[in-house]
């Protein structure tokens, strides 16, 4: 697919991963601009429905990142996330949705370089998987109407 620029939604936990992403920016580490960040208090707050909703609305890839196990600001939120998102990721794969579309990561507040690396890798993987056609809503009629009425 030529010139395909995937849309990636990243749910980053406020205390570690979001700070790590911020550090990557401040340190001027280069990473692709395909990612849109949504800040959540903790990776344990991430409802797997967020992932499905993001894909349904047109995201090509979804990332969830939190504090390393043992370092959660709320003690155990990321332990719950680890269990739940693991089962959820496998469910997506079983149902035929490309496994490249959903990624989970641990990024700490000091890991700016790792965050950049993560985004570089993930963007590449999603590019290879191509645009999301597995679970996306049919909106061509609305897009047509939007263009007409401009």
């Amino acid at each position, binding site marked *: 697919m030529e010139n395909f620029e995937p849309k990636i939604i990243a749910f980053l936990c406020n205390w570690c991963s979001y700070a790590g992403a911020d550090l990557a920016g401040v340190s001027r580490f280069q990473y692709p601009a395909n990612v849109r960040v949504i800040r959540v208090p903790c990776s344990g707050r991430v409802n797997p429905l967020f992932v499905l909703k993001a894909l349904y609305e047109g995201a090509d890839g979804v990332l969830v990142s939190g504090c390393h196990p043992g370092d959660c600001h709320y003690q155990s939120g990321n332990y719950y996330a680890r269990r739940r998102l693991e089962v959820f990721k496998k469910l997506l794969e079983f149902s*035929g949705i490309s496994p490249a579309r959903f990624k*989970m990561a641990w990024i700490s507040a000091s890991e700016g370089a790792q965050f950049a690396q993560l985004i570089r890798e993930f963007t590449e993987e999603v590019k290879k998987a191509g645009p999301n056609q597995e679970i996306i809503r049919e909106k061509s009629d609305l897009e047509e109407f939007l263009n007409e009425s401009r």
Partner: protein
Amino acid sequence: MSLGEITEELIAKGREAFLNEGIEVLLGFEKSSSGFLKPKAFFSPDSLKTLCWDASASTNLAALLPKYRGKKIGILAPGCVSRSLVILINEGQIVREKLKVIGIPCPGVIDRRKLGPLKNSHFLGSKGEKFLLESDNQILELPLEEYLCDCCLSCRYPSPVIYDYMIQGKSREGATDALEGRVKKINSLSEIERLRYFQDQAEKCIRCYACRQACPMCYCESCFVESSEPRWLTAAPTIPDNLIWLLTRTYHLAGRCVECGACEQACPEGVDLMSLLAWAKQTVFQLFNYTPGLEIGEKPALGSFSYDDPDFFWGGGLTEEKKCCT
């Protein structure tokens, strides 16, 4: 185990539960107009004369519990239903002391889908390894094993895990890999074939929510599909919306589904629900060594964690390299 004996014992135990244990309602079955059993709530010992149980009892009675919240309830429970009760107790939905469980050794339940055109015949009863149907003025004697639900064929817990009374008899022996086989078959498909398969199921779905209503674990007073803010899926039965419904319901049942098959029996469109649910059970077992509904007091699998859970996250495992900032 002949049908007549278990009925007598059932009624006797039911009467005991009313008279000695003070239950206010007994959840059981009675014959419907087609001879297949239908669920019924009995409110007095005298009403019990129509109480019965056989291999056509496909409803999971635990799904009816929310209607009688607060009352002291008697309930007929083969293995799967008893496990549903354990999970409901563990999730704080019912109190053990308010339940009187009449345990039933279960030989399995007939799958209406497997009956095909015979599903509208008149059901005459099951006895031992056979059951009788009347169709076009003929009486057919059929082997139970060929028409049992895949859930029953694979069932490893046919006898109830909790009970206050136990009816005499023998449960089904010898679990097959009927459900595992379904999962294996799907796993052997390529990614695109698997997606097509589930999209076909999503196409059949009309979003009537019969599966949800038949399931004892779907007791939420407000289901996620009814949430308008945030809205997770539209009301339209399109393929992507239906996929969200099927996948999310499966996910919400991971580690909670006892594989009773009531959902698949209830579905009027023939959607393959059990493959997803069997996959979920397998996965939770493989990852966390957990089987739902076996012990009162245990926490649900996806509602708890262990420090040693398998970790497949990117960046997992702190190495010296990753610890220092670059």
